[in-house]
């Protein structure tokens, strides 16, 4: 929805002033790709065809650049480090892809790069920058020479053929949702146990008014499990729903209100992905309309207990359904703030009344301890964007983990 001139760096990127060493590249023709096919050598000094910049902690960043660098250009940035060659154990210096950078400014001996991920301060970035020199090679770090490829010769004998240093770079495929820009796997929820707790009891309650006496009270109690493997989250619970809904009147009364009440048991299962997770669930219960089933489908991007966006659609049989968009930003390890918006027809009225209503709320989630989380949400809702016709929305959740 950006309508004005956006900065060239997409989304959450960071500008890092790299102001040490011979920053500006010498003239070169080095390709803007990972130098994975350079000849093998034990003494691999930074290529004279690339810019080298020193970080404060001594780490060396290399910008493969066809100099001169121009502001606005996008360059691949590599971290120079030495690691054992997986073939013979000898220490080989290599370049590891450390993200995309866009040249913001070039000055006298200084180049400023706006680095996209993974150097933006997330866990994967820190791991890359602090990687010890003798750490095992990772999937994104490669020795500088590929192993020789044996090809049959014309006379029937085999002759070794070394891959040419001029071999074209491998084309990047689409980045999976579960990987960042550097190709580093984001992992899944199993990699990040929430304070080491695997199970939780969760109690929620609240009220969503609509300004017309047909709001909805909702309370749940659930048992939540984060398995060590398999699904990312499994939750079962019971729910009570109380509200009023409008109905067409008879005789002199043109309309009236009747209770909308339901009780149900429900379940929810999340897939383990963090980049993109699928959410599903089923439930059954009894309400004003009799026995009914309910369903839940959704998507989540991000860790469920950290920065994430969740889109959910819940249908509760004849009582109606609701679509919710819930986004939260982890401003601290133990504090998340965000916004939530819901649209739907819960509870569904009987007759020619407006059904769809929306509510919006600010959300605050705080980990009061390693075993306790409190979530609070407050806002307004209704059938129109008129404060006079709006009802209040307030709800909360308390989660106790063990």
């Amino acid at each position, binding site marked *: *929805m*950006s*309508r*004005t*001139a*956006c*900065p060239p760096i*997409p*989304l*959450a*990127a*960071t*500008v890092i*002033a790299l102001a040490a060493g011979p920053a500006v590249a010498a003239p070169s023709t080095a390709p*803007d790709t990972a130098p994975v096919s350079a000849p093998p050598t034990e003494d691999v000094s930074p290529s004279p065809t690339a810019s080298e910049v020193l970080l404060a902690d001594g780490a060396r960043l290399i910008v493969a650049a066809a100099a001169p660098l*121009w*502001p*606005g250009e*996008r360059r691949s940035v590599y971290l120079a480090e030495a690691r054992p060659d997986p073939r013979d154990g000898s220490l080989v210096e290599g370049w590891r892809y450390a993200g*995309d950078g866009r040249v913001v*400014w*070039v000055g006298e001996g200084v180049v*400023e790069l*706006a680095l996209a*991920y*993974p150097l933006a*301060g997330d866990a994967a970035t820190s791991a890359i920058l602090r990687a010890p020199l003798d750490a095992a090679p990772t999937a994104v770090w490669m020795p500088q020479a590929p192993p020789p490829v044996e090809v049959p010769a014309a006379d029937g004998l085999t002759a070794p053929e070394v891959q040419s240093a001029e071999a074209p770079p491998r*084309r*990047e495929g689409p*980045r999976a*949702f579960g990987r*960042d*820009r550097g190709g580093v796997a*984001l992992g899944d929820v199993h990699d990040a146990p929430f304070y080491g707790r695997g199970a939780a009891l969760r109690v929620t309650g609240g009220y969503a008014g609509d300004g017309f006496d047909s709001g909805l009270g909702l309370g749940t109690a659930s048992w939540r499990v984060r398995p060590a493997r398999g699904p990312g989250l499994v939750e079962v619970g019971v729910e009570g729903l109380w509200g009023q809904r409008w109905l067409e009147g008879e005789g002199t009364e043109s309309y009236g209100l009747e209770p909308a009440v339901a009780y149900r048991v429900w379940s929810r299962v999340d897939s383990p992905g963090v980049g993109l997770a699928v959410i599903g669930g089923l439930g059954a219960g009894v309400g004003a309309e009799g026995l009914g089933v309910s369903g839940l489908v959704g998507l989540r991007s991000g860790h469920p207990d950290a*920065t*994430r*966006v969740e889109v959910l659609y819940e249908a509760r049989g004849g009582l109606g359904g609701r*679509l*919710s*968009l819930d*986004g*939260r*930003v982890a*401003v601290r390890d133990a504090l998340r*703030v*965000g*916004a939530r*918006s819901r*649209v739907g027809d819960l509870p569904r009225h009987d007759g020619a009344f407006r059904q*769809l*209503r*929306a509510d*919006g709320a*600010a*959300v605050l989630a705080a980990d009061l301890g390693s075993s306790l989380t409190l979530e609070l949400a*407050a*806002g307004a809702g209704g*059938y*129109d*964007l008129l404060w006079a016709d709006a009802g209040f929305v307030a709800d909360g959740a308390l989660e106790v983990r063990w």
Partner: protein
Amino acid sequence: MNALLMMIGAAWAGGFSAEVAYTSAYGPDAYGVSHLQAAHGPDLEIGVLGVGGTQPGLLATAARTLALTERFEVRGELQVGMLRAFGPSLGFDAGCRLSLAPLDVVAEVGALPGMGARGAAGVDAPLGGGWGLSPRLRLETWAGDRDPALRAALGARHVGPSGWWFGLEASAGGRDVLHMGPGVAASFGRMR
């Protein structure tokens, strides 16, 4: 309250953007937009979008960017909220960016029932020293679902060494030569 908390969150998280815009098409079609977004994690944005004018609205937004190749990325945004005199609405924005150094080619389309649809295309051209120009051509029915209006816009932006950036944009256009009006937009934020 939402905006306040999002601003606090954005300041803590480090990456955020704020945008305020006013667009007039001479006559009943006029609208203002304020969009506050917090960015955190790989390519994830969470925000609140407020629209005023012909068709006011208040929506929560969530966007995700995906780099399909080294030079090509796509972005999708979901918008859920309320429009005045229309009721709840669910919309989207989808865009792409092709990096052809030194230019970036960008295009985006979006639709929000009750508000209208919009599309834009243009380039981001760096000027040096952190400055850049962003010419755009837009076709939109915002905000009031009226006849399509064509607008030409020119934006300038600056990215500072500390990651703070700001942008200004001026535009002109309308439904026809008799119904044209100006538009201005200002945005700022910090990349993280």
